[in-house]
């Protein structure tokens, strides 16, 4: 009986196991295929193709159905040869894309190509949108909790006060009942605040010194207020395009001087011209990185900002051509030195080898760029006093440094010792 049962079970289980393992196998290999395809796509194809959209070349989704598989193999491996041979399909596509030749990929095997196509055709299942109740964020939660405690405390104190009043009243009642006379220790009624004022007014020294103190302290505050006039530390204007240094410089680790290239050779760091943006953004049409939902910076938001760039530079995304209709971007300048100050980026960045962050702060963490340093003269001078000059390998300094360090008896020279505190070095 038992054995039969087992047998029966075996009869069911074994095929079942096989079936499941097979299907697993199948599923697993498809996933692997897609993964391998994605990798290959990113290395070989992504420069010119996108999955869903037309780029320099056509969108890849659907090509496996549109064209014969064998044709695709030979096309991808050597498109130029096919065009030359006069294959009608090949010529048609070549003409369609303005006779832009596709690179030949003889290194790709048929399996590789299959994988790429599998990746291109793969439509990921629509993500299940969790319809869960909105999560109460931690901050709000904590706030509520504090409020509750506060209310509770207030209640407790109120109860305590009420109890004390009641106790007092009871005690008085008991006292009067037992014949104890309660003597009030209050002095006869006299206006105390007024008397203090009178005494104060009579003491001239006190009046004098308090007036002085008052004046000095208000002077201090007025001075402090005046001193911040024209200092725009933390100035964070709204820019016409929401450009995130956090994404570019932080997440993607783009060198500052890739875009601000003139900082190396010129007095200005230079806001990159839009063609510099297009070096990358020709291919990056949408944002796929991390989102900051709290501030509303979701993927759609960032993608929209990229569209603003396209509008400004006159890039027709669908046809992948420049329309020639440009609209220069009017950025709001953040770091404004007064006219009478001469500042040269090349001197600091290239000669002085100062990190950009020294003055501009943690730019790679700034979602919105702001003025990090006060940019006051005291701030400049302080740095000139403290910073040593890096002279290695710069022949200009060799002789001067040798003589000066002998004169001052130091190994390393500060900017100030080199004459970096002279008025005329920055004001002309």
């Amino acid at each position, binding site marked *: 009986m038992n054995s039969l049962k087992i047998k029966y079970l075996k009869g069911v289980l074994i095929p079942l196991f096989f079936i499941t393992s097979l299907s697993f196998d199948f599923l697993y290999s498809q996933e692997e295929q897609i993964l391998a395809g994605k990798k290959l796509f990113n290395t070989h194809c992504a420069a010119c193709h996108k999955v869903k959209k037309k780029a320099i070349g056509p969108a890849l989704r659907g090509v496996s159905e549109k064209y014969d598989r064998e044709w695709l193999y030979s096309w991808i491996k050597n498109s130029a040869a096919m065009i030359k041979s006069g294959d009608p399909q090949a010529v048609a596509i070549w003409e369609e894309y303005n006779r832009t030749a596709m690179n030949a990929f003889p290194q790709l095997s048929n399996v590789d190509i299959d994988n790429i196509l599998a990746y291109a055709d793969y439509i990921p299942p629509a993500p299940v949108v969790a319809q869960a109740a909105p999560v109460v964020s931690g901050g709000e939660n904590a706030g509520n909790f504090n409020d509750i405690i506060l209310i509770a405390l207030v209640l407790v104190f109120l109860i305590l006060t009420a109890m004390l009043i009641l106790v007092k009243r009871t005690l008085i009642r008991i006292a009067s009942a037992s014949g104890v006379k309660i003597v009030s220790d209050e002095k006869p009624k006299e206006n105390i605040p007024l008397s203090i004022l009178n005494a104060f007014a009579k003491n001239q020294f006190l009046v004098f010194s308090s007036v002085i103190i008052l004046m000095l302290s208000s002077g201090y505050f007025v001075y402090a207020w005046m001193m911040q*006039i024209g200092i725009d530390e933390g100035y964070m204007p709204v820019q016409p395009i929401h450009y995130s240094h956090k994404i570019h410089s932080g997440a993607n680790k783009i060198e500052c001087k890739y875009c601000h290239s*003139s900082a190396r050779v010129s007095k200005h760091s230079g806001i990159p011209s839009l063609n510099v943006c297009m070096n990358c953004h020709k291919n990056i049409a949408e944002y796929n990185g991390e989102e900051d939902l709290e501030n509303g910076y979701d993927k759609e938001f960032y993608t929209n900002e990229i569209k603003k760039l396209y509008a400004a530079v006159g890039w027709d995304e669908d046809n992948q051509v420049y329309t020639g209709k440009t609209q220069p971007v009017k*950025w709001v300048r953040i770091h404004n030195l007064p006219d009478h100050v*001469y500042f040269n980026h090349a001197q600091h960045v290239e000669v002085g080898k100062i990190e950009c962050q020294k003055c501009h702060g943690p730019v790679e963490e700034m979602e919105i760029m702001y003025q990090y340093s006060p940019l006051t003269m005291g701030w400049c001078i302080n740095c000139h006093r403290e910073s040593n000059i890096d002279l290695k390998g710069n022949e200009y300094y060799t002789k001067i440094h040798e003589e000066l360090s002998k004169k001052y008896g130091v190994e390393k020279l500060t900017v100030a010792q080199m004459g970096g505190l002279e008025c005329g070095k920055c004001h*002309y």
Partner: protein
Amino acid sequence: MKKNKKYWKSSEELKKESKILDKFKNKEFVEKLPEDIFITNKQALEDSSTSRRDFLKYVGFSTAAASIAACEGPVINSVPYVVQPDEIIPGNANYYASAIADGYDFRNILVKTREGRPIKILQNKDSLSLGESNARVLASVLSLYDSKRLKGPTTEGIEVNWDDFNQEIIEKLKNLSKRNEKVVLLTQSIPSPTTKKIINEFISKFPNVKHVVYDSISSSETLDAFESLFGIRAFADYDFSKAETIVSIDADFLADWQGGGYEGGYSKGRIPSGTKGKSSMSYHIQFESNMSLTGANADKRIPCRQEVLKKIVVEIYSKILDKGINNSIGFDELGKKASDNVLDVIKRLKKSGKKSLVVSGIQNIEIQKMILEINQKLSSDAFDIENPKIIYQGKNDQVKDLVNEVINGSIKGILTFGIDPGYTLPMGIDFVQAVQKMDLSVVFSTKENETSSGAKYVAAVPHFLESWADYEFKIGHYSLAQPTIQPLFNTKQFQDILLNWSGQNSTYYSEIKNNWEENILKGKSWNQSLHDGFYISNKKFRPSKNKKDHKYNIHNSINPVSSNFIDLVLYPKIGMGDGNQANNPWLQEFPDPITRTTWDNYLTVSSKDAKKHGFKNFNVANGGLNGSYAKIEADDKQIIAPVLIQPGQAEGTMGLAFGYGKIKGMKKEMQIGVNAYKLYENFQKTQSVKVSLHDNKYHEFACIQLQNTLMGRGDIIKETSLEIFNTKDKSYWNPIPVVSKNHIETPVNSDEVDIWDSFDRSIGHHFNMSIDLNACTGCGACIIACHSENNVPVVGKREVRKSRDMHWLRIDRYYSSEESFESDNEAVDAISGLGETLSVMDDMEKANENPEVAFQPIMCQHCNHAPCETVCPVAATSHGRQGQNHMAYNRCVGTRYCANNCPYKVRRFNWFRYNKNDEFDYNMNDDLGRMVLNPDVVVRSRGVMEKCSMCIQLTQKTILDAKLEGREIKDGDFAVACSKACGSKAIVFGDINDSKSEIKKLKDNDRAYHLLESVGTKPNVVYQTKIRNKDIS
């Protein structure tokens, strides 16, 4: 020689007692603020609508308002390029080689651009010819940003588009061509091979068109002379550095004579060279009527009337070539002194032979032929006819015929380019009226002008900095001009329009390129030529050998002298030239090197003639110069011009400058002066006129000659003669002043008598500047270069008259009277004190007759012991280790103590805000004009002091470039605006801590001295003693 000569800057100083002068000596700021008058005047105080209390209220309110307004900073936008051009890096300058040929100036230049805008013009020092720039060329960058420029083509004053414009004119041209009516193309001289081609093609398409070249100031007869001797219309070129004896008869070759550009060679020969004791320099004698820049530089200057000048040439000719022309040409009483000198000249010429040169600016074909023959006979090394200059091309007869035809109506169509005959012709008004009646009248111009006001069609052409062009200034010396900015307005080049009208599809640019590659470069690189801006081929001019024996009939051209008439000698000022840049405020404010007058032209009169006619010059209370008006009458014309008494002006002659009195296309402030072209009959620069006193009114001049006066410190200029220089010790002719310390005479520059602790300047750079008074011709190119480099404001005539000129660099012009040093010394030694000096100099007329002139450029001396620094209450001016005296404008509160304490008077105060201020409607008041500002130099605001910074922005840039490249700085890397602009290499700048540098050698030179050394300021600017060649052999 203990004391130097007696110098004066203005005739005022020769008077016995001059209150004005005393005032100037004692007061830095002549005009006091009138607060005393106001406060003591009770009535005025009571009448005033502003009470003291109100005033305080306003002060309080405006302070509060200002501080509140300061809380909110303005939003500043930064707009980057959409596509940044490869060659532009914001913040870095680019330089392009180009060329200017505006019909008057023909030079190779270098254009400095920032962010795609030209901001400065420099010399193209690499070009082997015409690389020196004068004031006008350097200032021409401002004319690019002239707000009065034409914005697009107009038909009858209405702006139209180019297609309609061209279409309409082509129709008319075809029509005229069909009827075979005369049409004339009247242009400036365009020495451009490709333009000539284009014009020829245009004429072959419309054969009824005749091309006539017109120069506003004619050199026609000089060209005729060259043509009749050698076969082409050109100027012989001259290398003055190869001449030991230079004889100039009315040739202002340091200014505009034959296109100018000779100062480099001239100055080379003027610096004494050779071993000590045997130094030599060129000897220069000048015969002329007006006191010209060249005459001012001469070793000997003989003022003569115009007909005497001609006689001198004839005399020299007949003696050098041993040809008696006509012995009946004698020298009369007036020319007697000149004739004595002529004998001396002939002796010298014969002696120096190949090393001598004779030049003349007399516009007379016979005279000019003689000059050419004299130089040929002398086989002068300096005389070059292999590569003659082919800049001016105008032919008087052609132009005269044309003007007659225009006026009598036989010409039905006119096209003019680059010229303004309505302004520059004596019968300009008739001309414009005739143009108005024509079937077709087209004016190609950058600006509205007198001619364009009568023309139906006005074609807006771009400024030369926006244009392509090619030139051949000298035979075989080619130049290329390239655009340095996109056209600012809707303009098209003259050549492009002509191509369009001839029905050709190409552009001027492609025509130039094709023409060059085919005919000029012959395989050489186009890009290299464009980069250099010039190309020199081995093409040479070979004059025809068969020399005819010329017969001269000079008698006719020498007019008999009549004492009733005055020789009016019309001349171009170095600042204004022919007047095509009259709307350029830099040039208007440019002080004339000789008269030191700005914003004017005037009749220069000798003091004898002034006395005769009752003309007066006097200084009023604020120091401004006033002058009588003179009525100049010639035939049926008369002109009223102010009189300026000019020392050295030949008796019986008067001078009047071209280029003023323009009205059309000019800002109101610049519509000044009188139009001398009205008297330029028959293109003769000498006109016989009658002159008389007009009215009893006085003209107000804006001179800066009395300003910043010497204060009795005559030793500011040191000069000596070549003989003394060679024979005597330095301590004789360039002594260092001594002071007594413990009854021992100690030189002022020794540490013994120094009360200052000095910085250690031995490490790093220590900048010094050397100014060679022998090389400096006083041309003033440095003034304009400084203007454009340092954003110096233009203040206008009214302010200049009040001594409020802002030039950081001024060129002082000193007159001295005694002809020999010995007699001068005797005179000076015999007197003490200024009052007595003046009594000795009582004979003003004598002193004024023919003074010697010395020029001295003065800018901030960057004293190591600067008197200005110690008196500044806010330490706004301080000293740098590199020797520069810094000025922190934002720190200055405007006490003006520093200016009071400056012994050299080089500090300038901003009495007003000169930018964005309608009261000063010059270039800094409009967006276009501000484009010329140098972004590296701050624009100063009202109430601050400013002065020469020794172009610290340039020295800092040189240092930074070296740091970026990681190299040491070579000698010659350091340069400042004035040293770069100096065509005669008088200004040398460098680092004296570099022991091998040129400046170090100059500083240690025997001739070197500091200004007012006795003051003990230890300046960083050294001057080289002026040596005059008094060689009486």
